[in-house]
């Protein structure tokens, strides 16, 4: 088959999709998205859950639920805001990809949090949290940094730093 004929058939198939029902391609798109995203966001979700459980288990009794919900919100909202910030500054990332990377980069901090449960001494905890913080930050910086125009790099990277700093502080103080 010549290329022209192939293209004609392809565009016909497209038209059929659009003609049959307007909802059809959209639902297919959404399903495809959910399949892709659902798989990709499991990791960050697990990380987030572990972190929330660890941090809320050590809280004062009247604040357990608040801290659990709060950590959840901070992680997802924080990752979302950092991503949106990078996008608005002209970065070329896809939203879910960036949220995913930020979520996965939390993993070193989860390790720090787990270690902090067992070693309660303040200096040891500071060291663990510091190492986790630096590791997580460098991991996500490596991802986001090349995608931002040069004159706005600090503006886009500072929120990442702030995000991990907040979470590190929560782990340290708990």
């Amino acid at each position, binding site marked *: 088959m010549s290329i022209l004929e192939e293209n004609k058939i392809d565009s016909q198939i497209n038209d059929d999709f659009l003609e049959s029902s307007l909802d059809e391609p959209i639902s297919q798109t959404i399903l495809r998205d959910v399949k892709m995203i659902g798989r*990709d966001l499991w990791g960050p979700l697990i990380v987030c859950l572990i972190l929330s459980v660890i941090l809320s288990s050590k809280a004062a009794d009247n604040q357990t639920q608040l801290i659990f919900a709060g950590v959840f919100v901070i992680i997802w909202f924080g990752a979302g805001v950092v991503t949106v910030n990078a996008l608005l500054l002209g970065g070329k990332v896809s939203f879910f990809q960036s949220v995913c990377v930020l979520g996965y980069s939390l993993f070193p901090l989860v390790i720090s949090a787990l270690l902090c449960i067992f070693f309660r001494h303040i200096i040891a905890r500071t060291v663990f949290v510091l190492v986790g913080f630096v590791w997580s930050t460098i991991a996500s910086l490596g991802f986001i940094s090349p995608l931002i125009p040069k004159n706005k790099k600090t503006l886009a990277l500072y929120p990442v730093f702030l995000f991990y700093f907040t979470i590190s502080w929560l782990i340290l103080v708990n």
Partner: protein
Amino acid sequence: MSELSLENNSQSTTSSGNDFLDDDLSLNKMIDDNNQENEQQLNNNEDKEKNEGLEFQNFTPQLDLGQKTTEIEPQPLVEEKQDKSPNDYPVWSLNYYSQYFDIETRDVLLNILNSINPIKGIALEKIDFFGPFWIATTLIVLIGSLGNFTSYIKSLEKNKDNAGEPQFDFHKITYASSILYSYVFIYPIIFWVFRLKSFLAHTKVKQLICLFGYSLSWLLPLCLFLPFLTESGKWVSILTVSALTGFSLVRTILKQWKQAENENKTKLTLIISLIIFLIHCGLGIAIKIIFF
């Protein structure tokens, strides 16, 4: 055709096992698919917006839209943003708000440095939302963490033999965020809505938001030192910084008044300036009382 190819890709990714290597490869495929999809979506948006103004696809330049003919061909992501100004996008799309983030590192730093100037008023380099939002957020983080640190120090002073761990009060973060975000975003909007037919009539909302946001910027270094000062030291420093930034804020607004040359409304001007100053100092005092 692109729909079919994307579907094939998603099938291959879901059928791959939990092997780590496979996940890596499928992740790359998904990244490519996402990028492809983004480009597609942007092209779709472009088509939709053209069809809003036109009745049929036209390859000659239209007078009212002022778009170039080259836009009709699908273009890669980067050039797309340069051709269209952010105002062309609908309000609910992300690209509309990129106009408020059109700022460089240098501009933000200059804005922060200029935000305390009781003599000449705040002279902002560029109006943006980046500064106000992230200054407020940083303040929340600092206040939340250092506020808890301060209560820990206080509890140490109270019982000298306290071997306990810091009691972490998460409420501090929630209170701090509601206070600060409303000060930076909601308060200017309310202010702007009620600005009356005064000299402020020509001020835009975004200028006010920017102004109030940056006026908070000097509280940041202050917060770093607060836990380590004595009680009177805390009060003195907070009041000083609040007064200085409050003065700068008022001065900026008064400058606009002089430009508008509205001389018969002196009383109103004074009242408005006083209100702004008091609310600003009130914020500083509230921060001191609640958190430190």
